[in-house]
């Protein structure tokens, strides 16, 4: 009975405090929103276009760029604005279409289109390659229209429309893409990336910050007073742990619900997801309690907790997929429980994983949780004795 009473006190304290609700609910949702909207850059090229004075042909070229898969087009008013955007990596390459392009395409001369990208910068060079292939396709139509106008006569515009129309049906040397590797080894992009990783990050971080409560209890002599009653130290520790787990679970469930309803995240096999959330809540609780016995002032908990939580999250692949870092950083990352949790979410969300397929991750996380909790209980018991 006293076990539940101790847990109840901890949970009520958190729920009454509106500030902790900000950290438990609002902040994670905001971060999921911002990171989810941003983490799409791993597979799209962002391309800027200045089409000032290039007329209908410029608009046609821009439309062709926009409809190319994997390319996101942004318009700029001047070449200077475009260059600044490339410099700041807002776009990775840019096209400056010439003024009077409409007249030029109807003539006989070669048309030069400015391609803004640093030759020494491979990322920009990669984007430039993609832009060039679209430009070449457009140039093919211009060539066909010029040729036809010359041979058959008539309006250039008519020939251009004809070439555009035929380009889809004339048998061409095709480039066929075949997938050699189909097993996605990282989380999907967008909110399906940010929601599970931020769940991992914030449940852990919040538990670390929650250690301030244990420190305050210790300093206020709360535990001594509890032990003065007919309560054993084991009960006090178990009650505190249960409080941590309850809060962590509540936060995880909230993030999952909001993720599913608002951001349309599919969390995979429900049983496996539930097991993973359960184990992760235990890991968080263990880490939080351990921090409560290690830090000596609440200030240290609120200063070191978030920094440690963010650093672990980075190492563990919550801020970017571990598939993009080098092998050393990937190995180092797997010393944190976060990496195992993100691996498990990846199997659930990207590979239709089940409890059986995330069993290794669940075992490792279970070991993390058990050792954190055991260490915390041992240290706390020593302090209570």
């Amino acid at each position, binding site marked *: 009975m006293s076990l539940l009473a101790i847990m109840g006190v901890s949970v009520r304290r958190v729920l009454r405090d509106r500030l902790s609700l900000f950290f438990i609910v609002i902040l994670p949702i905001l971060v999921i929103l911002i990171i989810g909207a941003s983490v799409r850059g791993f597979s799209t090229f962002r391309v800027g276009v200045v089409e000032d004075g290039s007329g209908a042909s410029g608009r046609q070229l821009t439309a062709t760029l926009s409809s190319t898969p994997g390319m996101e087009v942004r318009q700029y008013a001047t070449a200077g604005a475009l260059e600044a955007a490339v410099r700041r990596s807002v776009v990775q390459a840019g096209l400056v279409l010439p003024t009077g392009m409409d007249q030029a395409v109807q003539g006989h001369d070669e048309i030069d289109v400015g391609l803004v990208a640093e*030759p020494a910068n491979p990322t920009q060079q990669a984007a430039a*390659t993609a832009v060039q292939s679209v430009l070449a396709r457009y140039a093919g139509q211009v060539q066909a229209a010029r040729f036809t106008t010359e041979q058959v006569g008539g309006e250039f515009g008519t020939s251009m429309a004809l070439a555009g129309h035929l380009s889809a049906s004339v048998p061409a040397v095709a480039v066929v893409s075949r997938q050699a*590797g189909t097993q996605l080894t990282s989380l999907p992009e967008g909110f399906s990336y940010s929601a599970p990783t931020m769940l991992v990050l914030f449940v852990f971080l919040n538990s670390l910050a929650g250690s301030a409560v244990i420190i305050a209890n210790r300093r206020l002599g709360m535990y001594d007073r509890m032990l003065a009653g007919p309560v054993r130290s084991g009960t006090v520790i178990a009650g505190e742990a249960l409080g941590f787990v309850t809060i962590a679970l509540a936060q995880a469930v909230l993030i999952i619900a909001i993720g599913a309803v608002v951001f349309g995240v599919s969390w995979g096999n429900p049983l496996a997801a539930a097991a993973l959330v359960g184990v992760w809540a235990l890991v968080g609780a263990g880490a939080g309690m351990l921090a409560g016995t290690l830090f000596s002032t609440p200030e240290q908990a609120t200063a070191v907790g978030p920094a440690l939580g963010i650093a672990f999250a980075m190492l563990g692949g919550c801020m970017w997929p571990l598939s*993009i870092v080098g092998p050393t950083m990937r190995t180092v990352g797997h010393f944190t429980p976060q990496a195992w949790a993100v691996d498990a979410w990846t199997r659930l969300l990207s590979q239709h994983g089940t409890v059986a397929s995330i069993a290794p991750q669940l075992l490792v996380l279970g070991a993390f949780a058990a050792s954190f909790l055991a260490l915390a209980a041992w240290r706390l018991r020593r302090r209570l004795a």
Partner: protein
Amino acid sequence: MAPALVIAQKDLRQRIRDRSAIILGVVAPLVIAALMSLAFKGTETIHLTLGVVDSDHGPAAAGLVEALHGPGLKDLVTVVSETSPHAASDAVQTGRAGAAMVIPAGFSASIGGSHPLPLTTLTNVNNTLAAEITSSIAQSFVAQINADRLSVATAVAGGEAPASASAALATAHLSLPVQAVQQAFGAKELKTISYYGPSMAIFFLLFTISFTSRSFFVDRDQGMLERMLAAPVHPLSVLLGKVLSAFVFGVVSLGIIVAVTTYAFGADWGNPLAAGLLSLAMVLAVTATTALVIGVARTQRQAEGISSFVVFGLALLGGNFVFVSVTPPIMQRLALLTPNGWALRGYTDLATTGGGLAIVAVPIVAILVYTLAVAAAATALAPRALRP
């Protein structure tokens, strides 16, 4: 003025004794910036290992392989010869190659006929960037062939006899009439550490708002304020002392981070004078914000709540969590409503242009406008907070 200095001195001593200040102000931003720099070390530049299977051995295949070794692709692509489509597929699957290209047997002979054989690219779902680059290279290569085929087809559709269209094409020697002319514009590459060094320094600098405002109310709750005001001290000196300690702390912590990221991680903060003034403006903005939080809050708990909202609100909007350039355009505009968003833009411009004061003039003015507005509001509200 002197009492303010004494109060600032006492506050600084207190904060340094509690090691949490050093952790937040120096250790945490350095560790996190270093982690980011290490993680992105290999990804700052795109490089593609491309497997090529030449089953054709004809002139078109030779042309394609030659193009892959051309000057435009030299730094981007390393070509590795694979013996069979199966071997290439294996290389892509295991990640030995980012993607592969298969030139089928009979390719050169087929491209003049009515049923041209396709080029096949082998891609991995985990490396979409490599897939796109490979497909772009292949598309560019076949573009001239396809343009010629399209020219004949269009002329025929326009009324020309097929034989005469083909003959005309053969004599015309057409080349693609629209060409990209690459314009280098002398921008330096933005290294990850050059963005996240300043970004993390500012993020943790923002925490000064929480710490200082909280400590003001702790002092007040302990009756410190009454005792100070009993002395011949102007009430504003107390507030000034508090924010002065925040200012000094901010300057020192930023200075250490600049030094360590520059010498240990190779961060480029740009022109020292310009970067220094920009940093100073940013610290002033944080200091003014601290004063405002003290003015608005009534209790220690409120100060903690308001400052949390302010710190995380500014950090999220300003681009301290995610590289602001990759966010949607609306987020990039919102970032310019925050002083830290302007500061980050200033640092980015300094690192990529190598420019001086002129580059950061607009960011500095924007930050100072924010600072003045916030400081004015804080001064108006201060007497309430200072009433014992």
